[in-house]
Every structure is written in C-alpha cells, then in structure tokens.
C-alpha cells in the first residue's frame, strides 16, 4: 500500500517538474504538437541529461523560445532539427542518427547482449556436463566402496 502511494507521489513530482513556465500560444493544434514533440526530442546542452522541455537552464529557455519562433514562422520539424544540429551537433538530439561516428552507440548494446548470451550458454552447458560427470564418478566410487566392504565381510 505504502509502495503504491510512493509510486504515485513519484509520478506526481515527475510530471510537475515537466511543466514549463512559459505560456506560448499557437495558431493551430498541429503547431503546438510539433513544438511539444521538438522540445521533448532536443537535449539541453547545459544539463545534458534533460531535454529542453524538462530543463530550466537559461540556454534551454532560449532554445525553447527559438523553437517556438521557428514553429510559429511555419518551419517544418525537420528544418528546426537541422537548425539545431548545425549549431550544436548530433549531441543535441536524444536520438542521434545512425552514421559512422554513432555506430558503436547503436550497435554496442546488441553486441554486448550477444556476447553475454554466448558466455551464458557456454557456462551453463559446461556446468551441466561437469555436474553429470561428477555425479557418475561419485556414484561409481560409492558402489565400489560398498562392494569392497561386502567382500571384506564375507571373507
């Protein structure tokens, strides 16, 4: 019960932090949608682990204003993203494009996953074989001991 409450509280805090103070008005809902989407996808360069929507750093405010002005001026989302990348590089994107310099970023996790699974399979099969062998050997020794004891008794 307490846990559920804490979780609810966490979400409440999270969403209130997302609320920004600016009140920008848009002519069409599509523009507003585009603006919201953009500030979600663009990274705040100062705080680095926040997007523009979440950040209250001065630069983030300026970039939100810039985004707003460009949306208002009828620029397409792609044009606005290009504008930002031209100035701040791919780093400004939370989803960097797949190209030479970002291959490691995109392929890395999958590569590590493949290696991890391979190692896991190897460890499991080896352990199973080892376990089987030891069981047999131990069993054999026990039987031999019993037989020897039996022979001793008869003798």
């Amino acid at each position, binding site marked *: 019960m307490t846990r559920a409450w804490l979780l609810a509280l966490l979400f409440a805090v999270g969403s209130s932090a997302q609320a920004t103070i600016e009140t920008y008005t848009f002519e069409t809902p599509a523009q507003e949608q585009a603006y919201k989407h953009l500030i979600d996808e663009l990274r705040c360069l100062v705080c680095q682990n926040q997007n523009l929507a979440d950040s209250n750093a001065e630069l983030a405010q*300026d*970039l939100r204003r*810039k985004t707003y002005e460009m949306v208002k001026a009828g620029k397409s989302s792609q044009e606005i993203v290009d504008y930002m990348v031209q*100035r*701040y590089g791919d780093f400004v994107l939370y989803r960097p494009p797949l190209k030479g310099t970002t291959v490691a970023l995109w392929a890395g996790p999958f590569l590590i996953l493949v290696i991890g699974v391979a190692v896991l399979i190897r460890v499991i099969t080896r352990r199973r074989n080892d376990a089987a062998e030891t069981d047999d050997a131990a069993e054999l020794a026990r039987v031999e001991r019993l037989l020897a004891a039996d022979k001793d008794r008869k003798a």
Partner: protein
Amino acid sequence: MKKYALPLIVFLVIAGFLAIGLRLDPREVPSPFIGKPAPPFTLPQLHKPDATISPADMKGQVWLLNVWASWCTSCRAEHEVVTRVAATGEVPIIGLNYKDERDAALGWLRRLGDPYKASAVDAQGDVGIDWGVYGVPETFVIDQQGVVRHKHIGPITDKSVSETILPLVRKLKGAS
C-alpha cells in the same frame, strides 16, 4: 592458467574503456563549426553602441572570439589569462558579451581591465545560439579566411593557451 585468461582479458578490456572514459570530459560537446566558416553577425559594440562589429571586419587576420559575461564567475577566473594573451600582442581578441547588461559589463571591464579589441553586445543570446554557445566562457580561434579552427569550452588556462591556442595561432599565421 588458462582458467584465468578469460576473466583477465575481460578485466583489461573494461579497465581500458574506463581509463578512456575517465579522460573524456562529457561537458565538452564537439563543435560542428570546426573547419566551417564562422557564423556571421552584426552587433552593436559595447563601448560604442552606435558602431557595429562583425566577423567580416576581422577578415585577413587570425583572431579569437571570447564569449564572456559579467554574471559569469568562470569568466572572472579566466579574465587574467585572457589579459595575458592580449598582452602578448600575438592575436587580437574580440569579446562577445553574452546576455549581459551594458552597465554591468562596462563596470566589469573598468574594474578588471579590458583585454578586448572590441566587444559585441549579444543581449538576447541569439548570436550565441548561432555559434553553438552552451556554456560561458567559450573561446573560438578563427583564421584569416574566417574559418573556425578551434573551440575551447570553459575558461582558458595558461596551459591551454601555451599548449593549444597560441601554437595554433602561430601555425595559422605562418600558413598565410
């Protein structure tokens, strides 16, 4: 022996990556402007509000653009170094007074000395955005053709000046 080979290799690989990671500064975002023409601007000068200044005025020279503001504490720390660079007379420094108040900026320069050939006033920070500025101070090295050659993020130090900035300035001057 063979039993320890694999964990040892894994350890060395991870240690290698972590060692590289330790040396990287995540705050340093590589500038997309290196090797590209400096973004143009025309801004009023701090000392002469009626006169303007533009990177085009500096064509034919190697020069530094130093982004500063009176509210920026690191700029205060950097100021002595900038002053020393200006004193060498090797390279003219243009200031970009970023999102500052004119009076505060003028007072700051009066108090601490003015190493700048001129300072451009970027009150709204629009030129800052055009130059990809995200943390003040920042320093750009621009060559005779108006191409950005180097960007230093954060305060310049005597070390970065003597090891990177001035050698680059000399090299660019020699190349002309």
